[in-house]
């Protein structure tokens, strides 16, 4: 067959001197039209699958014809990236000012729409701080991948700002947050147990995203970004269903992506816990009217605590002690489970999948070939190199899967401990980790409105954040 492929078909060359030189002995074939036809079909099948691209027709030497150059247009200038970065810095600064100092819900809302227009619809949701987690991970684990500086800044800047002002990035800069802010028309109250349990999903998603980007398997966050399809105005049918369901869900449950999936939200939540100037609900004194709790569509307002009966207190302490003992067990259990999951996890890696399929084909366990195995055969690489690469990947998936499992165990145990610790609160306060600084709470706060009425000129500005 190899010989067949190398023989060029005489018709291809058309007329001219080449035809004579390259004609096949046609007379010998004359009586075997059917045979030739079958051979031609076989030839067609083989050639179409594998493209050896041999030089079947030597290029002519033109005397007075200048060969054009192959088109290879350069990438557009990086000025857009720097413009995005400038926009991010400006928007983060403005959002923090509007949320913490100016206390303007309206301003935050308008800024959110501007961010949605710029980072979402104009720049088509790419570049995005949520996805940048994966780039940083990949750069940390893969020495050949070089992280673009703007991408690093897109991850670092929101985190640094959150350290000081809380999650103002979520309030008005993130385009995904802005979409959900717009559709949150009829938010229902999610029961706290369900809210806390679903909140764990984001931790798991973050872990998976890091696991898969560290092993160079997939960029989960980008692949399952629910709103980027809207920004680009093009997506597959499966993603359309996924995105639309998120959008519809967002009408009744405030920010479902931010609260239950966003991996960056997890990091921002932790940074926000220690933020210096977080949004405060009442400008001066809380009158315990509960209006902020009613207004918050994200269940991020924590209510004042009551004095606990001594029996409950004792029981609570016992439970806490038990959970603290349970934590290392959960971590070890998670490690074991994750380690056992290494094979299904590794199968998501294209190299491992290729090696597996190739091995099955070589040993005759499956019939036929796939495009991937054909292409691999085409490259002429030895199979052992592929197997070795797959084996080392499987090894790293064992460790990574174990660490991922341990991390999930830690998160679950940590959440249980967190829920068992009672904190004393006398006023309604935002949960610093969950609060996205959207500004609805103080917008509805009667104390704030009274302040506006008394001194409209000082509206908002009178309410200075806590000074240090």
């Amino acid at each position, binding site marked *: 067959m190899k010989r067949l492929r190398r023989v060029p078909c005489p018709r291809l060359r058309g007329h001219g001197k080449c035809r004579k030189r390259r004609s096949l002995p046609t007379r010998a074939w004359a009586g075997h039209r059917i045979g030739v036809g079958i051979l031609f079909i076989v030839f067609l099948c083989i050639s179409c699958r594998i*493209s050896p691209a041999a030089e079947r027709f030597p290029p002519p030497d*033109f005397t007075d014809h200048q060969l054009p150059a192959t*088109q290879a247009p350069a990438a557009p200038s990086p000025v857009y990236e720097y413009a995005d970065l400038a926009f991010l810095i400006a928007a983060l600064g403005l959002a923090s000012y509007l949320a913490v100092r100016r206390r303007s819900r309206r301003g935050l809302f308008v800024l959110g729409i501007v961010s949605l227009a710029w980072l979402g619809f104009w720049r088509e949701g790419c570049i995005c701080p949520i996805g940048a987690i994966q780039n940083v991970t990949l750069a940390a684990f893969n020495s050949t991948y070089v992280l673009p500086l703007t991408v690093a800044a897109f991850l670092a800047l929101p985190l640094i700002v959150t*350290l000081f002002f809380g999650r103002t990035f979520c309030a008005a800069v993130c385009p995904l947050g802005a979409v959900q802010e717009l559709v949150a028309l009829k938010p229902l109250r999610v029961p706290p147990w369900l809210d806390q349990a679903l909140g764990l999903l984001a931790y798991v998603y973050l872990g998976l995203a890091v696991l898969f980007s560290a092993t160079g398997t997939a960029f989960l966050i980008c692949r399952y970004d629910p709103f980027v399809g809207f920004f680009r105005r093009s997506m597959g049918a499966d993603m359309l269903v996924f995105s639309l369901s998120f959008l519809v869900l967002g009408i009744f449950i405030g920010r479902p992506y931010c609260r239950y999936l966003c991996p960056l939200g997890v990091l921002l939540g932790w940074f926000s816990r220690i933020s210096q100037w977080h949004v405060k609900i009442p400008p001066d004194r809380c009158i315990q009217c509960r209006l902020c709790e009613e207004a918050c569509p994200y269940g991020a307002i924590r209510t004042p605590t009551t004095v606990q009966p001594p029996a409950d207190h004792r029981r609570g302490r016992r439970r806490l002690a038990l959970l603290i003992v349970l934590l290392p067990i959960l971590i070890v259990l998670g490690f074991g489970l994750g380690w056992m999951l290494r094979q299904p996890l590794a199968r998501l890696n294209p190299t491992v999948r290729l090696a597996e399929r190739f091995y099955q084909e070589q040993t005759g366990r499956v019939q036929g070939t796939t495009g991937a195995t054909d292409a691999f055969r085409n490259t002429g690489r030895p199979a052992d190199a592929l197997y070795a690469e797959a084996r080392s990947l499987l090894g790293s998936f064992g460790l990574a899967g174990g660490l991922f499992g341990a991390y999930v165990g830690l998160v679950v145990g940590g959440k249980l401990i967190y829920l068992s610790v009672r904190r004393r609160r006398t006023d309604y306060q935002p949960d610093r980790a969950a609060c996205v600084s959207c500004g609805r709470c103080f917008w509805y706060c009667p104390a704030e409105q009274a302040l506006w009425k008394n001194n409209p000129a000082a509206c908002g500005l009178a309410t200075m954040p806590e000074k240090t």
Partner: protein
Amino acid sequence: MDNPPTTPNRRRFLATALRAAGALGLGGLTAGLAAKRGRTGEYVWQLDPQKCIACGNCATYCVLDESAVKCVHSFAMCGYCDLCTGYFPPEPIEQRTGAENQLCPTGAIQRAFIEDPYFEYRILRDRCIGCGKCVKGCSAFGNGSLYLQVQHDRCLNCNECAIAVACPSQAFRRVPADDPYLLKVRGKQA
């Protein structure tokens, strides 16, 4: 929070220390990555024409409506055939340039007579959708001078290239942005 703000306490000290550590750590991370960036350039997506099997996924899987992958032509490798199998289907109705005779669904290949018996084929970039039909024809019967390449003026350089995920032959890989094309050169067969 009951303490006056000026009184330092343990919790406040810890929070400040953590904030400082966080800010410094993130700053250090960015600086470290910037230093690494100084040594090597960034990476962009490109498809290896030696691995490409012209399956047609490039035309449909790209996140752009009009794919960032388009056909390019290595003129030095072309045989300048009259009956070009990248231009005509295997059994053309007649050997003319009418649309019904062309393999390209968008008529993106321009055929021009050079000298007897040679014809030159040029790709009209605006029309090419990167379906790879001509590539398949050219590599099956010709010299393989027509091949697909990611066009960097169009490519968004997604984190996870949607075509790379769908590519059955793993032909997509990241290449240095300084040299973003894997062009075919005559006589150089990988």
